[in-house]
Each structure stands twice: as structure tokens, then as C-alpha cells.
């Protein structure tokens, strides 16, 4: 499967993905990689029902995602294109370091929570997430913070990470 967009978004499947990005990228499939949702068929149905008709959906654990992306013809159709979603940097990094080698990761939405600091108005990070951002950069991947296609894109670089790290 050709990954058109690998996106970190703690809201998973919602308007910015199903309307904003999907209308521009026209993916065949949305792959939601999350261990908790993959383990709960009911939650899986709830998220699946939020995907517009015409786009297939797979809800997989992070390990299943890696396996499926490595042998796409068994799980996904041949020559499919897809949007890959993870709810946090750790899950996306798991997929990245287990052989997917994502060149570019879209940081689409990480909302405020306890212990988090603001990096951008739609990107709040805790220490662990910041360390994973660091790992992405060390691995050569580009971290692009952008909520919507056509919207402002900010490349998350080392200086930006360092600036937030000082606050912890």
C-alpha cells in the first residue's frame, strides 16, 4: 500500500481526516493503528462508521499494522493507497522503526493533557512524546505539523524540540 499520509492525530477518524485530507488525497483506505481500539470490536465499529462510503477502513494494532504493511497484498488490495493514523508519536514510531521507514510524518493534532506543554496551538507534548519526536528526527524522518491540506505547515525541527524541552 502506498501511504499518502502518515498522521499523528489523537482524534483518529474525524472531519479533518475524512473530509479535509481525504477529499484532496483520495485514499482507498484509512488504516487506524491503535492497540486499544483494535482490541474492542465495538469501538472499532464506532470509528469505522465515521469513514465515508467509498473509503475502506482497517483498524489494527500497531503490530498488525506493521505486518499488514509489510505484506500488503494479504490484507490490503493491490496498488491501494492509504492514510495511516496513529493516536500518538509512540505508536507511529513503533510502525516507523519496525521497517516502515516513514520519510515524512504529519503531526495533525495532539491536544492538551496533564503534563503536556505547548509546541504549537494544536500540538501539546509530554516528555515521552518529545523524546519520540527527537528519535524521529535522528532517524532522518521529517515531522510536519499541519492540520489540513492547504493550511500552514510547520516543520518540527531540533530547535523547536529544544525550546519545549527547556520548559520541562
Amino acid at each position: 500500500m502506498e501511504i499518502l499520509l502518515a498522521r499523528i492525530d489523537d482524534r483518529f477518524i474525524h472531519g479533518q481526516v475524512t473530509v479535509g485530507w481525504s477529499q484532496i488525497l483520495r485514499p482507498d483506505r484509512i488504516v487506524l493503528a491503535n492497540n486499544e481500539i483494535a482490541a474492542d470490536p465495538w469501538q472499532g465499529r464506532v470509528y469505522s462508521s465515521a469513514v465515508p462510503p467509498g473509503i475502506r477502513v482497517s483498524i489494527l494494532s500497531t503490530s498488525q499494522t506493521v505486518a499488514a504493511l509489510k505484506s500488503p497484498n494479504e490484507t490490503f488490495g493491490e496498488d491501494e493507497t492509504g492514510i495511516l493514523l496513529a493516536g500518538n508519536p509512540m505508536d507511529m514510531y513503533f510502525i516507523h522503526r519496525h521497517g516502515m521507514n516513514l520519510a515524512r510524518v504529519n503531526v495533525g493534532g495532539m491536544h492538551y493533557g496533564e503534563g503536556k506543554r505547548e509546541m504549537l496551538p494544536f500540538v501539546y507534548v509530554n516528555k515521552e512524546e518529545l523524546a519520540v519526536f527527537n528519535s524521529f528526527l535522528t532517524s532522518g524522518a521529517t515531522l510536519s505539523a499541519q492540520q489540513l491540506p492547504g493550511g500552514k505547515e510547520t516543520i518540527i525541527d531540533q530547535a523547536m524540540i529544544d525550546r519545549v524541552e527547556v520548559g520541562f
Partner: protein
Amino acid sequence: MIPCLVVTHGNLGAELIRLVELVLGPMEGLASISNENRSMAKLKADIRKWLEDPNVATAGGVLLFVDNHASSCATTAQIACAAIENCVILSGVNLAMLIGYASRRESMTLEQLVPELLQIGRQAITQLDLPDG
């Protein structure tokens, strides 16, 4: 009385309630919550907190409105309410539905109210006449 929570994007829920209260006066048991600046985990926790409020939990039935199906408000409300008995979520909230709820919530059961509100909401979505030419 059936308590109600309006879960929306932005300030929509709070504004809808403000307008209902302009028509019908202050509404105890009618609250709103926005997904703005809330992670899904926080939104879920805050919906649960509302559901666990003694006035809500003992009401014998609760109603939630969301503004749009297939949105993070809808999925989060569904997941937050998964284990709640006598709970109904209606999507596509509009002012007519909310006024319909507010004016019937004392006299109807949840079972009676739901089909009524769906009808009111759909009736409010219509093309309005304009003079020819």
C-alpha cells in the same frame, strides 16, 4: 425531567443553549461541552463526569445531542456512553430540536421524546419559499 448534554465543535452547543434559554428561560439539567482544546480522552472523561453527576445518574434516562455524525464529538460520545443504561444520542442537533427537547422534557419519557425530536429536527430542515422571479 430528562437531563441533556449537547456535545459539539466550537461554541455551538453553548450558543444553542443560550438561544433556547432566551425563548424558554433558564434550563436546569441542560448543559453543553465542546471538543475544542480537549483531547478525546479529556472529552470522554468530562462526558462521563456529567453522566455520573447524581442529578443525571438518577434521572432514569439521559439524552445527548451531537452536532455531526462521523465526527470526534459523535465517536467520543458513543464511547463515553457505551455502558450507560437508558441513554440516547441524537446527531445533527439544531435549534428546533433543542427547543423541542426543552419544552417536552418534563412531560415525556425518553422513549416518547426521541422519535418526536427526530421528527422536529427533520421538519426544520427544509427549503423555504421565495417569491417567483
